[in-house]
């Protein structure tokens, strides 16, 4: 399924990315295929540093706090139990490495390498010059890799990675890092130099090298994971998120009781601790803050990379998701489209200013979907399925193709302008079946697509005097609402997320396509927008995300499977939703702790309870700043006291 999705993604990428130039033909590079045994690296072979050992890691303050407060027992949450090692740790994991070649049978050029470890998924490295997917494509444990030979060295560039860790047991990475591996073969030895460039959590790229030796007799095993996805952390709360409050992880310096010759400061990481100049701090002639070192610069513009997941470029981009479902990225807001024999359903309609372009994209998609080229597989009037005077082939040639199926339903997950803005124009472009002689006689019936939403969406829109034609035609008030019949061959279910972003939010589950449109519950580019005045709360958002996690199922090793379309940002899966839920739970507990200590809103803001997540999701400008988010969190938690 993932393969199919990736193929789909690449198909989408071709729509918007210039065709790549033909790659240069390889000039007889060394053969790196085979079974390799881990020989050594800069650390012990277990590659398991003690808890709190950040020596040699160029952490910034956010990365340090994120690592201090993340508990290793996060592995026990149902969504993470079967995840493979994070990509930066794979070369250091035990069990060896296998490198396979995928060759073009005609030219015998290497089209791709496949690298495998004991605790990894297959890691394909494409050598055919294909571009990397767009920024709104999903991130995976393995990421998306392309390779290029330079002399005897294979350079592998990997993007689209999930958040994880540099090493077992502590140092964390964000999901915005790129990884560059340089593989060089010297006889029977393979040297791998890895650059991890994480603009969110590091001051400069982290560099490590690892050595392997060819081993004709080894065979890389695969560790199975037949977990039942119960909550391994005990108790009966399957949504429990283990973590430490800032300053309360007392185990970080345990190892220094034994290695007491190591000063504490460099164990906290930071770029200056990596340079010879740092010695000056040891004899007291300087201090770390005053040091000037020739620091490497990150080559990744973090803010730009995050923004590209939800581009505000005035355009509509298309991403096929799975089954009937497509994702439109419409100037910073996602629209989910179900397309099939019954017609079109949209989950949200984007901003009003984008409705013409959204409609154009939907129509283009509808035309492509319902009038594909018809292969000629039968001749004559007796062919199965023939309707008319000749075979299907003749019909498709002589008669004109049928028009695309209409837009029949719109679902609004929220009353937010960026989700209902296109309602009026797009609903009026569609129609609902008028029931032949029953409804046809009544002029007002069937002239618009039906608009579904929670009743509080209608209340909000009505209160705001929104045009009548833009308001929901069918509302629900219960925990969930099923469409009365299949649409495009599947059940569609609306789930209420009460007191989440507002009091009217919901998410939509396409039960056969296995896709969830999460609305504003999920964003890969910002903290959730919580309108406390309209009944929103942080706990409501967390509850909504937990409900999504209860429904969604990973395809394999904690990724893929049920895809989740966020209100803004890249296409996501269960692990991404869990990561976002984990973050919000950590922030909730920090602010709750502060409230319990009697801290005022101003004091809580000054304590920066979101500091380790701000470089990834925060903002100091725009319509939803970190300051506004913290205030909403504080107020909504205070109300629940």
């Amino acid at each position, binding site marked *: 399924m993932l393969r199919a999705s990736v193929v789909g993604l690449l198909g989408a990428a071709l729509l918007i990315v210039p065709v790549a130039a033909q790659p240069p033909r390889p000039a007889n590079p060394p053969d790196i295929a085979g079974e390799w045994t881990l020989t050594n690296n800069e650390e012990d072979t*277990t590659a*398991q540093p*003690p*808890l709190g050992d950040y020596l040699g890691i160029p952490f910034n303050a956010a990365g340090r706090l994120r690592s201090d407060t993340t*508990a*290793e*027992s996060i*592995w*026990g949450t149902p969504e993470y139990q079967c995840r*493979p*090692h994070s990509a930066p740790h794979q070369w250091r994991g*035990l*069990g060896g490495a296998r490198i396979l070649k995928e060759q073009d049978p005609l030219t015998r050029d290497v089209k791709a390498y496949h690298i495998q470890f004991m*605790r990894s998924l297959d890691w394909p490295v494409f050598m055919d010059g294909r571009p990397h997917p767009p920024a709104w494509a999903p991130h995976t444990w393995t990421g998306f890799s392309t390779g290029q030979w330079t002399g005897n060295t294979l350079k592998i560039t990997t993007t689209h990675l999930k958040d994880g860790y540099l090493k*077992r*047991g*502590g140092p964390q990475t964000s999901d915005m890092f790129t990884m560059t591996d340089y593989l060089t073969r010297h006889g029977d030895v393979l040297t791998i130099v890895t650059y991890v460039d994480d603009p969110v959590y590091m001051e400069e790229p982290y560099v490590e090298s690892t050595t392997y030796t060819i081993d004709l007799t080894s065979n890389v095993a695969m*560790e*199975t*994971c*037949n*977990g*039942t996805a*119960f*909550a*391994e*952390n*005990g*108790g*009966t709360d399957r949504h*429990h998120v*283990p*973590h*430490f409050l800032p300053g309360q*992880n007392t*185990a970080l310096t*345990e190892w220094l009781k034994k290695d007491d010759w190591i000063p504490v400061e460099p164990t906290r990481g930071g770029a200056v601790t990596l340079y010879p100049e740092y010695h000056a701090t040891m004899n007291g002639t300087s201090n770390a803050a005053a040091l000037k070192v020739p620091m490497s610069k990150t080559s990744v513009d973090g803010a730009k990379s995050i923004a590209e997941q939800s581009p505000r470029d005035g355009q509509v981009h298309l991403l096929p998701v799975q089954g009937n479902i497509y994702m439109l990225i419409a100037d910073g807001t996602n629209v989910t489209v179900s397309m099939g024999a019954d017609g079109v359903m949209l989950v949200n309609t984007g901003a009003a200013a984008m409705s013409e372009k959204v409609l154009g994209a939907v129509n283009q998609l509808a035309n492509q979907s319902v009038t594909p080229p018809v292969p000629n597989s039968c001749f004559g009037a007796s062919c199965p399925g023939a309707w008319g005077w000749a075979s299907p082939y003749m019909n498709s040639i002589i008669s004109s193709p049928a028009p695309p199926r209409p837009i029949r339903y719109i679902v609004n997950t929220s009353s937010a302008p960026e989700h209902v803005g296109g309602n009026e124009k797009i609903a009026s472009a569609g129609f609902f079946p008028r029931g032949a002689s029953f409804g046809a006689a009544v002029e007002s019936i069937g002239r618009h697509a039906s608009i579904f939403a929670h009743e509080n969406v209608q209340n909000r829109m009505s209160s705001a005097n929104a045009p009548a034609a833009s308001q929901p035609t069918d509302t629900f008030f219960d925990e969930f609402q099923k469409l009365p019949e299949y649409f495009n061959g599947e059940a569609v279910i609306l789930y209420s997320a009460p007191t989440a972003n507002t009091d009217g939010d919901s998410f939509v589950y396409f039960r056969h396509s296995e896709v969830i449109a999460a609305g504003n519950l999920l964003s890969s580019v910002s903290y959730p927008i919580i309108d406390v005045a309209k009944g929103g709360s942080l706990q409501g958002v967390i509850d909504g995300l937990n409900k999504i996690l209860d429904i969604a199922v990973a395809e394999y090793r904690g990724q893929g499977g049920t895809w989740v379309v966020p209100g803004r940002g890249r296409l996501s899966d269960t692990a991404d939703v869990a990561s976002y839920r984990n973050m919000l739970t950590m922030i909730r507990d920090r602010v709750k702790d502060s409230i319990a200590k009697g801290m005022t809103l101003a004091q809580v803001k000054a304590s920066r309870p979101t500091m380790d997540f701000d470089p990834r999701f925060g903002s100091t400008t725009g319509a939803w700043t970190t300051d506004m988010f913290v205030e909403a969190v504080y107020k909504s938690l205070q109300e629940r006291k």
Partner: protein
Amino acid sequence: MRTILSLAAASAILAGSVAYAHHSYAATYDVTHEIKLEGRIVQFVYRNPHSFVHVATNDEKGASQRWAVEWSGTTQLNKAGVDKESLKVGDVVVITARPSRVAGEYRALMLTLKRPSDGFTWGSQGQQVD
């Protein structure tokens, strides 16, 4: 002598089968503390990468708690003579374990397990979770 040889052989087997967990035990559990759990097995998950014994116990207030005690994977347990039939739901067991580093979690790492009804034990002769 036979006992000594058996223990030596078992040690060699265990040493040869070391495969570090995908997550770090030292980072997950507080190896400086030990807890004791007495209760009834409610689930035995014999699986990879790690097995789990779920035990219902009563806390100091008398409330029932469900503990998840992490054990070795199937290969390691099998070599130590433990298979999926070794424990049954309803068995009353006494477990010593390392607690989670996160306060409030009902999670622990198996040190020893004893079933008083028939004397079945694990961990008291040098076996350890790996």
